[in-house]
């Protein structure tokens, strides 16, 4: 994605209303406000949230001296009416959806995985490493399989560090996964400016590009690579696991009330651990997709902001796997529009982060987020 920073974010459990816990006083205006809007159908509130986001975004753009209507029209036409842009959006959406699932699964257990950024990067590093070492000995299929496994394991291990800190010394996983993002980023920079540097790279340092045979093939007549299917399959699998298996049910129980789950004899620690490990593995796969399907080599901006955007996408989708596909697509469209914004209006591409951020601000605050329990 464009620029900005990396960090991932994840939802936590009980969020809550830290502020509103005191005995329900007569002044708890959140409930008043909620009842005031309760009659609005969900779709109308979402439209309102989107509109509010657009209005504030326009105000920012205007304050910066650009014509907001022209900018919005520019975003619209360049993103949705240009041929090929639809495929670009799909390509962007795939890793966002996978990394979003990495938020969804732990969120079900009440954990906040903000480490998507870092898990994507270590997934990409592991996939690149696997490709480098396996290519001399193995068939194309073997190399690809090795890359997938390495990326998933690396992502899981990265999340596992946070899981261990959470379960052994009770350090909150949101804080540790954020810090791990920076560790992953600087480790990658160390590699691509040091041992893995492509001697032939001009300008920006990168790792050596994947050989053509292990780049993911594209569907004929399009630029969409087959890895996109992986994201859709993963979303369906997560949906099935969360809603149709006893594991998913137990996870939801732990997320709802861990103490009750523990007394009911559920293996709470193991459930929390597997939730984070699976999440990390999914984000690692997103790193594989980004490497083998999009970028083909590690560069300093590899996977940048995908983890954060995925966190937003998961919250927009209320941590539901199938709606996540839709929100990933929407955020990917906004991200793609950022590039055309830079070309068309001369505004920094990261400006669209404002739009994404505002969208989630309004959704967090004004679309009955209170009822949500991860």
């Amino acid at each position: 994605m464009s620029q900005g920073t990396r960090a991932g974010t994840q939802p936590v459990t009980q969020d809550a209303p830290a502020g509103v816990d005191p005995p329900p006083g007569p002044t708890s205006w959140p409930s008043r406000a909620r009842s005031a809007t309760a009659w609005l159908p969900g779709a109308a509130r979402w439209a309102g949230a989107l509109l509010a986001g657009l209005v504030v975004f326009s105000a920012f753009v205007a304050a910066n001296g650009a014509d907001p209507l022209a900018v919005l029209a520019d975003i619209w036409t360049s993103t949705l009416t240009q041929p090929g842009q639809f495929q670009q959006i799909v390509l962007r959406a795939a890793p966002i959806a996978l990394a979003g699932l990495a938020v969804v699964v732990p969120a079900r257990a009440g954990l906040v995985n903000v480490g998507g950024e870092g898990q994507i990067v270590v997934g990409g590093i592991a996939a690149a490493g696997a490709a480098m070492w396996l290519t001399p000995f193995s068939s194309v299929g073997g190399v690809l399989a090795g890359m997938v496994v390495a990326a998933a394991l690396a992502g899981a291990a990265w999340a596992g560090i946070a899981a261990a800190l959470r379960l052994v010394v009770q350090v909150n996983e949101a804080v540790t996964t954020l810090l791990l993002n920076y560790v992953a980023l600087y480790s990658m920079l160390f590699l691509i400016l040091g041992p893995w540097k492509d001697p032939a790279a001009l300008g920006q340092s990168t790792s050596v590009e994947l050989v053509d045979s292990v780049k993911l093939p594209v569907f004929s007549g399009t630029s969409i690579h087959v890895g996109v299917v992986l994201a859709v399959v993963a979303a369906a699998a997560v949906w099935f696991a969360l809603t149709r298996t006893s594991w998913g049910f137990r996870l939801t129980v732990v997320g709802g009330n861990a103490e009750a789950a523990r007394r009911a004899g559920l293996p709470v620690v193991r459930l929390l651990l597997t939730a984070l490990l699976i999440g990390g593995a999914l984000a690692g796969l997103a790193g594989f997709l980004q490497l083998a399907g999009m970028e083909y080599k590690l560069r300093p901006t590899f996977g940048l902001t995908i983890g954060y955007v995925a966190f937003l996408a998961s919250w927009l989708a209320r941590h539901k796997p199938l709606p996540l596909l839709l929100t990933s697509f929407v955020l990917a469209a906004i991200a793609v529009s950022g590039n055309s914004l830079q070309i068309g209006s001369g505004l920094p591409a990261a400006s669209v982060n404002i739009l994404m951020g505002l969208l989630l601000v309004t959704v967090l605050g004004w679309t009955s987020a209170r009822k949500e329990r991860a």
Partner: protein
Amino acid sequence: MIIDILAGAVRGGTSIMYAGLGETVSERAGVVNLGTEGAMLVGALGGYAVTAGTGDPWIGVLGGALAGALLSLVHAVLVVSRGANQFASGLTLYFLALGVTALFGAGFVSRQINAFATVPVPVLSEIPGVGPVLFDHDPLVYVAYVAAPLVWWVLYRTRVGLLVRTAGERPQALQVHGYSVTAVRYGATVVGGALAGVAGSHLSIAYTNSWFENMVAGRGFIAVALVIFAMWNPLRIMAGAYLFGAALSLASVLQTAGVAVNQFALNLVPFVLTLAVLAVLGRRTLQAAPDELLRVFDSSRAA
């Protein structure tokens, strides 16, 4: 070279200290603000832009504090009034700050400003060893020497501090006595954001004397972690901030000294150090956490 590292620790740790103090205030009232990173970003740009406009870095610091306070006000609205998830809200605001500062900061990227100059303290800066480490810095570093004890004093020795701490420990008690928990938490969050804004200003108008996209580079998140193992105590924040300042300054000092070490390996040091300290001290420090915070931090504490 040891003196260089120590002096760098004090300079580099200052912004983390301001941010950590701000986060302490807000967490003492029961509000975790991961948006500290974002508040530092808008503070860095706000401070830079106001300094560029007025020519006076002191007014710039005020601008930075105001920017940080405004961003944190949004956090307070979402979290305190609307009951949104504290982590999700904080990270959303960080993302928002990334976009806002990219948009408004584009024009300031290579602009020159009248930044804070180093002001050696007369006499004291002449003392061998101690002088260059402690008394040969920009004014915000000196203000920070006073800020940490001051925040401690306010939190533990004044009525306002008592209200803030009660909001984080027993909000019911505040209500019983006729105080508004909402108002106290708004105040603490906004003041915390203002301090994070000052932290960002220190980065842009005293430390690097420049503005570039995403210049805070994780210092705000380090500050949030620092608060945990400083056990929500402003004086420990001071000590911890200088420790991380040392880790941050290691890279530039070694490079200046001509030691060939990969810069990115050194950039890892503060983050790895933070994680290591959390791993060692984590469980013990949680006992010092405000009660309300524990509910936010760890809904599944039963595990």
